[in-house]
């Protein structure tokens, strides 16, 4: 194939699609997880708080805190990780408050999403962008 301007542009577009693919696949996996958790229900933004740092120097231990008063379960996802699910917290009858903190791994700068299943059966979603300077997940 002769390398004309048109051919070069087609090649460039192809490369762009190829590199964009893994991100799209990971995001779709995250969407599937969310759909499985909520059953495809609409999500509000009231009633849930996700606390995460704006900048994490080390993606291997990023402290996060989720809080959703009255929730029965909270799912946390890192949409930019090779496997998006992070953890699911189920609160039993003796939990004094529906909040919990832990430390997570992030592969790179991305959105962390928390979805709570509230007592009335509705769902709430909160997200926070974390800038990661050194990635976790072996990255």
């Amino acid at each position, binding site marked *: 194939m002769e390398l004309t301007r048109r051919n070069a542009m087609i090649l460039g577009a192809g490369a762009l699609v190829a590199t964009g693919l893994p991100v799209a696949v990971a995001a779709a996996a995250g969407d599937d997880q969310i759909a499985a958790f909520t059953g495809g229900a609409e999500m509000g933004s009231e009633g849930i708080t996700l606390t995460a740092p704006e900048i994490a120097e080390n993606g291997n231990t990023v402290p996060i805190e989720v809080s959703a008063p009255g929730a029965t379960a909270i799912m946390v996802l890192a949409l930019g990780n090779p496997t998006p*699910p*992070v953890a699911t917290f189920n609160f*039993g009858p*003796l939990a004094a408050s529906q*909040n919990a903190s*832990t*430390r997570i791994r*992030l592969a790179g700068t991305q959105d962390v999403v928390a979805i709570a299943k509230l007592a009335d059966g509705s769902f709430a979603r909160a997200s926070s962008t974390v800038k990661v300077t050194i990635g976790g997940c072996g990255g």
Partner: protein
Amino acid sequence: MAKGVKPRVKVPKKAAVGEAITIKTLISHKMESGQRKDGEGNPIPRSIINRFTCDFNGENVVDITLEPAISTNPFFEFEATVPESGEFQFTWYDDDGSVYETAKKIAVE
């Protein structure tokens, strides 16, 4: 069984009735995510703790599902109310089938 696994739990010794007490737990575990590669470029197989539960006198406080994105030495902090004196049971379930348990007593006045 993963080596050097040691659960550590911090629970207050005493509490008032209806008081919310904070519990902190940490278990030393390498939590191999399955994403890393060894020196020769072969992927290191996943080896994580996939579930953690905390119960008080048989009633559930929290039940957490862990995924590879939880950091090495998984740490959790949460709150519980205790209706009477009794014992907290903490249980971690490893991918390889091992179960790590520890218990802490609390006196309610």
